[in-house]
């Protein structure tokens, strides 16, 4: 809730209270005024009436004293009337029963006056003995009080202006208005105070509620009173406490879930039916090779760069069907992908995508199947060739010259078969057996021995073998058979994959951090970049023809690798179009 709403709220409450109060006060003021008006009028009339009665008695007494009768001659009355008026200080009139004015202290010629029979006071006097009335005189511009008393032959009437009455009425009205205004003002102030004292806690409550709603769970309403609002505030505080507890436990659950999802090595994402990514873990980022942007909230096809995966997700979202397949993703790794629809009350909410890395598994699988097919192929080929030659020999037994050539070829292939089988046996032995005794071996001597065996082959191919060995009197701990296999195969390869007139340089050196490095460098044909990682695989050969021609089996480097692993040595390769360089690193 914002500020304007709050002020409107406060004004509306005070406005309503103030209007109610004002109406009440005005009503009472008018009522009291009305009552006072009546009372004041009555009091004035009573005073005037008493005075008039006294003065009537005076006139009676005066007439009796002077003329011994209440009913003197009319002429006498005319003469006396001025004097009576003068003494009483009132206007005095004598009116005949028929209403004609006999004499009037203010008028010299009473015959000219209106008939007074129907004046209120006159009629009343005639009926009840005396009567009075009050009227506003326009000629005198003041209220006139009239009093009439009935006698046998006439009606005596007296009149008196009553300006005080009007004045006091006006004053009373003024006082009442002032008083009313002051009361009104006071009550407005009081109302404002009351309203403030009511709205302040309400506003506090509203503030608290809106802060709480906008996520500030730490605030509470402080120092509440014992009023109803205080009770509301107390229960709101309670509610807030409970909510915070609930929220905390929810957050805890959420965190647990997040940690779980994050710690899973499989790439996981949930895509909602608006095609937006809503849940995603770190592993998934790796799968889609996204490092610089946050993908949650984005459309899945904006960040997943794989046609098949996007298509399958789209299909699963459209048909609420699961999907399972293998796919190489943009990071170059192969994943086992499973897409599962997430439904709630039979309507699709989204899909869960789980990516499991199966690159290594596939690699191993491939190596296994390759191995089996390679091995059978390698073993079958020489037999097929031998069989072919033997069949030809059988058909041409009398042609000894031709036959001896075929026999030589058959023997060559039988040798090849033998060397393949020997290599397989050797490799198998190295791989499975672990009783290679630790003994002192002298590297220089080993290399020397290999060079002696291979020297003839090198000479035949016009390849120069150079040695530059650092003297190693002591020798190292290892196994003679394994070490010999390593150096023999490496030097053999350096000769086999060399060019006529090339060189093989064998160098050894001890570096300060206690390792002996033997380098076997050649100036041969080199190894293509994309093959370098594969030459240690069984039966892998860059150029099959060339390998066969040199009596290779494709197993040499596999043997080297396994032997080195058993010895705890390291083999590294570097190669370009000018030759290859193999290094054997021996830890002393």
């Amino acid at each position, binding site marked *: 809730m914002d500020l304007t709403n709050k002020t409107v709220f406060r004004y509306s409450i005070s406005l309503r209270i103030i209007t109610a109060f004002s109406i009440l006060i005005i009503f009472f003021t008018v009522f009291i005024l009305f009552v006072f008006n009546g009372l004041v009028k009555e009091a004035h009339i009573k005073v005037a009436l008493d005075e008039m009665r006294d003065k009537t008695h005076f006139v009676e007494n005066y007439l009796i004293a002077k003329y011994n009768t209440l009913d003197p001659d009319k002429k006498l009355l005319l003469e006396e009337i001025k004097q009576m008026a003068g003494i009483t200080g009132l206007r005095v009139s004598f009116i005949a029963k028929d209403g004609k004015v006999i004499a009037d202290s203010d008028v010299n010629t009473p015959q000219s006056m209106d008939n007074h029979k129907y004046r209120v006071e006159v009629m009343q006097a005639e009926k009840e003995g005396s009567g009075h009335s009050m009227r506003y005189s326009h000629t005198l511009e003041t209220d006139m009080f009239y009093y009439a008393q009935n006698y046998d032959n006439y009606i005596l009437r007296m009149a008196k202006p009553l300006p005080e009455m009007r004045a006091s009425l006006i004053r009373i009205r003024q006082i009442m208005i002032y008083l009313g205004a002051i009361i009104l003002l006071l009550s407005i102030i009081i109302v404002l105070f009351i309203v403030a004292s009511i709205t302040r806690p309400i506003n506090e409550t509203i503030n608290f509620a809106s802060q709480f709603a906008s996520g500030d769970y730490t605030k509470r309403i402080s120092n509440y009173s014992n009023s109803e609002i205080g009770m509301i505030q107390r229960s709101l505080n309670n509610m807030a406490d409970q909510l915070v507890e609930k929220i905390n436990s929810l957050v805890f659950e959420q965190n647990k879930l997040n940690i779980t999802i994050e710690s899973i090595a499989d790439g996981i994402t949930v895509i909602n039916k608006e*095609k937006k990514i809503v849940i995603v873990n770190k592993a998934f980022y790796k799968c889609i*090779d*996204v490092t*610089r*942007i946050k993908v949650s909230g*984005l*459309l899945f*096809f*904006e*960040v997943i*760069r*794989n*046609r098949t995966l*996007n*298509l399958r997700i*789209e299909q699963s979202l459209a048909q609420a069907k699961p999907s399972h397949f293998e796919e190489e993703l*943009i990071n170059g790794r192969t994943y086992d992908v499973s897409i599962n629809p997430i439904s709630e009350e039979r309507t699709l909410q989204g899909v869960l995508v789980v990516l499991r890395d199966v690159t290594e598994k596939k690699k191993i699988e491939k190596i296994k199947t390759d191995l089996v097919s390679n091995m059978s192929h390698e073993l079958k080929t020489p037999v097929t060739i031998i069989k072919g030659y033997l069949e030809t020999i059988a058909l041409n037994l009398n042609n000894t010259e031709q036959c001896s050539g075929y026999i030589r070829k058959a023997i060559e292939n039988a040798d090849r078969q033998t060397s393949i089988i020997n290599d397989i046996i050797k490799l198998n032995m190295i791989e499975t057996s672990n009783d290679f005794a630790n003994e002192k071996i002298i590297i220089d001597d080993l290399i020397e021995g290999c060079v002696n065996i291979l020297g003839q082959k090198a000479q035949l191919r016009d390849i120069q073998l150079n040695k530059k060995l650092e003297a190693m009197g002591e020798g190292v701990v290892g196994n003679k058979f394994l070490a010999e296999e390593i150096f023999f195969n490496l030097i053999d390869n350096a000769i086999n994959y060399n060019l006529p007139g090339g060189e093989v340089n064998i160098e050894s050196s001890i570096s300060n951090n206690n390792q002996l490095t033997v380098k076997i460098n050649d100036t041969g044909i*080199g*190894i*293509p*970049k*994309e093959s370098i990682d594969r030459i240690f695989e069984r039966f892998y050969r860059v*150029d099959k023809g060339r390998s066969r021609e040199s009596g290779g089996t494709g197993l040499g480097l596999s043997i080297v690798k396994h032997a080195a692993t058993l010895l705890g040595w390291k083999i590294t390769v570097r190669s*370009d*179009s000018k030759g290859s360089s193999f290094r054997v690193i021996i830890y002393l």
Partner: protein
Amino acid sequence: MITHLEHEIENIKRKVFTMTDAAIEAINDSIDALMTLDDKLAAKVIQGDTRIDKLEIQIDDDCVRTLVTQQPAASDLRLILSFLKINTDLERIADIAANIAKEAIRLEGRPRVTTTGDIPAMAATCVNMIKTAFEAMTTRDVSMAAEIISVDREVDELNIQLYRELFAMMGDNPQIMPQALGLIMVAKSLERIGDHAKNIAERVIYYIEGVDIRKENKDHSDNK
């Protein structure tokens, strides 16, 4: 509530991204085919190109229809205009990939030539440029898009390096001429793919900022 225009834009977006994925797949597959001399994979790339051509026409139609019927303004308008251009770039990229695949078929059976110049690395850089351009688009990140333009120079350099190396090798060993010329052509193709990726990045900047970076650059050079 999703408006009609938003719906149309999402639809176009989906198709453009599908096209992107197809183009990236074509690059990767054509290079794989070249490296392993796999003519089946190469044939797949060449066949896939027709599908991409169809998709290009569809996207063009969708963009034009949306422009006419929805009359988008401001950023939406720029997005669709960018898509129109990016669409062409992606189609060209796929075409080039198909040409690389044809080269792979042509080189089949010939001994391989090895160089230090790295064609797979060049291809990976190109793919990454395209991918990053679209990431910049979705996050409206101008600096990310601008980086791509400088990465393009790396691709150009790799191309030149490879060219020199292969040229020297041909001098030493004229037998490898057909393979070496093939690799030169592939490297040149990748360099052109890099150029298209750069175009896409420029389109992305136009979409985000509303200024044509090429025009600005021209203004600068005019001032000099």
